[in-house]
């Protein structure tokens, strides 16, 4: 058997959108392996989500257990191993969300499988070589996993969401989770009225050019309000403590690919560009005409942001 198992991500009963981007990759992988696509639902009280997931494959394996209420890598990796065996899967895939990045290598160790992280897609029309970014996105490596079982995480912004079809089978999966050495203490959700950065249609990012922390609420937020945009930031301003950590766009932060991206007062360090160059349309506003950000921007405005951003807000 050479089926493909998609590890889904369920948060507060809802399936995360990134899961469906991983299904799209899995559908292609199943064509190549000659097997089918099956899904794995992990959590506590997730019957409804599992029923929805069944529409995306031949079967959904459901590990519904109070011990799985929170996404602990130690517990989830064991379930993924059991799920892969139950599904007869030789490819195990999950979206490269923070949870996917955390748990999948651990699952790969339990499966004795080689793993390719954060992949962009297949490298050719057949076979299993995949492309992935290395060196902060400056180089694309083509890699081959040599083990029979292959573990893969997919970069969500590189794949469209799969569409549902006829519902497959729902199968219970029970896994012994005794003796866990990790305790889930709490989750502090960052509450925001804005769309989440990785899912927003428009992203407005600010950098050092804003000069001080107070200019985020003064200039970036009103512009984001006008466009119902998510707000991002360069690493420099995150490190300076102007904005929270989870707003960093870049290879080491969030990778975004919105329809419209505004880089305001951002020079365009390699690190930052790696996290946003997949955006459909990029606008850069910077007073330095030589800033590297202009080399990748569709529309560059060389100007003092303190003059043009208020004007933009007024005219939108």
């Amino acid at each position: 058997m050479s089926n493909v198992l998609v590890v889904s991500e369920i948060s507060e009963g809802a399936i995360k959108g990134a899961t469906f981007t991983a299904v799209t990759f899995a559908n292609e992988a199943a064509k190549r392996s000659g097997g089918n696509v099956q899904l794995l639902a992990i959590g506590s009280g997730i019957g409804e989500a599992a029923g929805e997931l069944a529409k995306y494959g031949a079967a959904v394996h459901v590990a519904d257990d109070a011990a799985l209420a929170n996404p602990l890598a130690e517990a989830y990796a064991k379930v993924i191993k059991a799920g892969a065996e139950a599904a007869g899967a030789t490819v195990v895939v999950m979206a490269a969300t923070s949870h996917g990045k955390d748990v999948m290598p651990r699952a790969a160790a339990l499966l004795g499988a080689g793993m390719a992280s954060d992949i962009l897609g297949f490298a050719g029309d057949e076979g299993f070589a995949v492309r992935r970014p290395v060196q902060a996105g400056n180089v694309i490596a083509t890699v081959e996993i040599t083990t029979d079982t292959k573990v893969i995480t997919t970069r969500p912004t590189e794949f469209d969401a799969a569409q549902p079809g006829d519902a497959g089978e729902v199968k219970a999966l029970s896994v012994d989770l005794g003796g866990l050495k990790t305790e889930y203490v709490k989750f502090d959700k960052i509450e925001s009225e804005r769309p989440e950065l990785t899912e927003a249609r428009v992203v407005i990012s600010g950098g050092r050019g804003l000069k001080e922390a107070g200019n985020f609420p003064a200039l970036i937020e009103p512009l984001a309000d006008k466009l119902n945009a998510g707000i991002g930031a360069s690493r420099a301003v995150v490190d300076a403590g102007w904005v929270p950590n989870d707003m960093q766009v870049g290879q080491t932060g969030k990778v975004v690919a919105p329809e419209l991206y505004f880089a305001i007062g951002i020079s365009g360090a390699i690190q930052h560009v790696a996290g946003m160059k997949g955006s459909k349309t990029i606008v850069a506003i910077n007073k330095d005409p030589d800033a590297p950000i202009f080399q990748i921007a569709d529309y560059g405005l060389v100007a003092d942001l303190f003059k043009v951003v208020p004007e933009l807000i007024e005219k939108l």
Partner: protein
Amino acid sequence: MKILVTVKRVTDYERKVKIAPDGSGLVTDGMNFVANPFDEIAVEEALRLAKAHGGEVVVASIGSKDATQQIRQGLAMGANRGILVLSDELDPDAVARLLQKIVEDEQPDLVIMGKQATDDDANQAGQLLAGYLDWPQATFASKTAALDSDEEKAQKPGVEVADGHATVLREVDGGLETLKLKLPAIVTTDLRLNHPRFASLPGIMKAKKKEVKEIAVDSLGVDVSAKVRTVKYAEPPERQAGVKVEDVDELLGKLKNEAKVL
């Protein structure tokens, strides 16, 4: 407590690396090499924990003889001794299984690693090691205090260790998660955990006298053949520079009529 930290020698992440014309590899001749920046954060965290709780910090690296420089850097920051496993470039899985041997030999209470190396960006070794050892893990360790806060300036550790457990704040999508791990455990560092110190001149002098044990990779009895093989390197698709606009009105016009995104 005994803390093992890992340091990888990587190409300078602020310089663009060149690809061999036939795509078979990366051209590293003339490149500057540095310690993986996430690993410097790991060394810093280990030093702060050792200062707060007493104990020893051991720096381990796997790589060529040249990686001695990066181990010495960790020793100059204040770590006690080093271990270098001499080997060619390996995939994360082989690295994790070699580290498993080192851990079984050294028996640390805590292993702190960078969340990813800035050359292959795999973000796997820590989680793989935790899986092989069946130890609890907390990846992407962070803290609430900002890097310009007084708490950070006082070099307080972000990871809390008490009663045989480590409590770790993690950066995850949409918020911050707190996990409590039973020691021994694996922690991997994110960027905001701390600001690593520079090695002082006396630190550098002292580091020269500290032990760096060299181990031949073959002596550890681990099959290091690659589970993941890179077969080609290529430039990412080039994004063309667009146009410069004169003013806000022209920009809005282009966004509405040309890009049709407004």
